[in-house]
C-alpha cells in the first residue's frame, strides 16, 4: 500500500495522519467544553511574570 511494504513504517505513516485528524476532532469537540475563567491568582501570576520579563 502506498508503495511501502513494511507494515510498521506504513502504520507510522498512516498513524501520523490519523493522529492529526484525531487532534482536529478533539479540538473541535472540546472547543468550548472547558471553563475559561481567569482567577485573581492567574492574573497575579501573569503580573509577576511580566515584571520579570520587562526587567529582562
Amino acid at each position, binding site marked *: 500500500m502506498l508503495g511501502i511494504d513494511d507494515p510498521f513504517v506504513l502504520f507510522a505513516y498512516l498513524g501520523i495522519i490519523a493522529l492529526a485528524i484525531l487532534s482536529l476532532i478533539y479540538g473541535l469537540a472540546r472547543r468550548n467544553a472547558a471553563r475559561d475563567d481567569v482567577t485573581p491568582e492567574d492574573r497575579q501570576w501573569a503580573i509577576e*511574570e511580566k515584571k520579570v520579563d520587562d526587567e529582562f
Partner: protein
Amino acid sequence: MPGQSSVGWIDIVVILAYLLATGYLGWLGYRGTRSAADFLVGGRSAHPIIMAVSYGATFISTAAIVGFGGVAGLFGMSLLWLTFLNIGVGILIAFIVFGEPTRRLGHHLGAHTFPELLGLRYQSRGIQIFAGALIFLFMPLYSAAVMTGGSIFAATQFGIDFEVALLIFALITAAYVIPGGLKAVMYTDTFQGFIMVIAMIILLVVTYSSLGGVTEAHRYLTDMADMVPAPLAQMGHQGWTAMPAFGWGAPTYDLWWTVITAIILGVGIGVLAQPQLIVRFMTVRSRRELDRAVPIGAVFIMLMTGTPFLVGSLSNAWFAQHGPILNGKVVQEISAEKGRALVELMKKDDSGAWTPILNPKTQAPATAALIVSERTPAQDASGAPFELVGGRSVAVTYVKGDPDKIIPVFIASAMPHWFGVIFFLALLAAAMSTMSSQFHTIGTAAGRDLYERIGNKGQAREPSLLVMRLAIVVGLLIAVTISYMVRQEYIIARFTAIFFGLCAASFLPAYIGGLFSRRVTKAGALASMTVGLAVSLFWLLLVKAKEASAIGLVQLVTGGKTSLLADYPNWPSVDPIVIALPAAVLTLILVSALTRPPAAEHLNRCFPER
C-alpha cells in the same frame, strides 16, 4: 555539488525583507500586547493559532529539520515514528494530560521557571538548584545542535565555509537573544511559524511531484533496498521504507536499537520534560485555550517533522534519478537486470587519468552503489585499460558520508535557488524561536534558580539581571565552541537526543509525581533526579559506544575499548534513557514509600481543587 551557490542581490533583498518584517512585528508587539503574560494580564485570550504555532516554533528547530531530516536520509522512514510520538506525546499527551495541571500548579505556587516549579512543589531549594544547574550545564548542547544545523545549511546554500556561517549565525543569535529577543513575542513567533509551514508544504509537494507522485516515489525508494551501503546493511538497515532488523544479541540488530532508543524514544518522550516547553503551559489562560491549540499544534508538528523525515528519506530516490553522474570502476555487480553495481569511485586527475577517490576516514578507495547508466572504455593512471561506468547513487554518497548535509544538499540541488533562500529563512526562524527560549531558560536557570537560591546562608538573594545576561553570553559561547569543535556523524540529532534524554531521565518522574501524586516526597524526587542523571551520565561516558568513544574516558578505563560492554552485542547501541528512566521511576516510588509524605497543608496549597 553543494556549495556552488552564492549570495545574489535577490537573496539579500529577500532576507532583508524578512528581517524587516520580523523586526516590525516585534516592534508592534513591544508597543502593545506581546507575550503570553500580557494576554493573561489583560484578561484576554491569545488566538489558538498564535498559542499553538508559538509553542510549535519553540519546539521545532534546525535540529529537527536538518539534523533529524538527515538521519532519515541515512536510516529511512523508520524515523516517521518520531513524528508519530511528536504528535501523540508532544502535543496530545502534553497538552491534554500535562498542560492544565502544570498551569494550575504553577499559578498556585507562583512558579515562573521549571526548576522553581519543582522546588516549590517539593519545598526543596536543593531540587531547584539541581534542576537549574542541569539546565545551565547541558542546555548549550541542544543550542549547539540548533546552531550547527543552521550553519551547515547556510554554508551549503550560499557556498561559504562552515566556520564563516557559524560565526554569522552566532552573531545573529547574539543580536537576537542578548538585547531583547528573549521575550516570547508571540506575533513574531507566529509569523515565523507561518513561513516554516509554507516552506514545508512547498518542499513536500515539489519532492513528491519530482518523483512521480506519492506511491511512485515510495515504490521507487522501496526498490532501492539493495543499494543500502554495506556498513549500514551490516547493522540491520533493510531499506529506506523498512524498519531496521529487530532482535537482540548480534551486531545486525544495532541499528534498530540506535534508531528506536536513541533517536525516537529519547526525543519522543523527552519532550515532556523540556523546561522551556513546560513553562509555556503556565502562560496559558485556561484549559479551553489548551484544548483549542491541540489541532493546530498537531498539524504544525506533522508538517515540521513529517516533511523533513519524508523528504530526507526520499532524497535517496531523487539523487538516484536526478543526481549528478558519478564515475568509477565496477567492484561487484549488485543486480545486472536493474543495472546496479558496487563501484569504486574515480575522478580525473590533472593529467586526465582516472584515479580512485579516497575515503577521508579510511584512506581506502571510496565505494558506492550506483545505478549505472553509461559504460565507456578508459585508462587508469598507470595506463591500464578498464571499463569506466557512470551512474547515480544514494544521498549519503553525495554528501561524502555526512548525514547532516543531506537536507541542505538536497535543497541546493533539487529545488530552485529562490526556494533555498525561503527555506533558509524558515530555518532561521525555526532556530531563532527555539534558541530564544533556550537562552531565556539558561538565563533564568542561572539567575533565578542558581544565583538567587545559592548563598546568603539559605536566604534568597535579590534578582540579578547581570547574572542572567552573563549566563546567556556564557551559554552562547559554550554552544558556539561545541558547534565549532565537534563535527561527527549525525551530531545534530545526537546532541538533541542526549539533552532530551537527560531531561527525561532526570526530570520526568519527579515532574509527573509532582503533578499527579500527593504521596511523592521531597527525598523521593531528589533521589529520582540524582539517579536519573547519574545513570544517564554513566551510560554516556562508559557504555554508549558512539558518545563514550568520542569523550574518551572509556578507552582509558578499558584499555582501548569503545564501551564497557563492547563484548556484548547491542548494549553499546542502547540509549541511556532505556536504563536511566526506569531506574529513576523506581527510585521515586521506593524512596517516596519509605519517607514521610508531605504536610497536608502544603498539599492543599498545591492541589486546592482536590
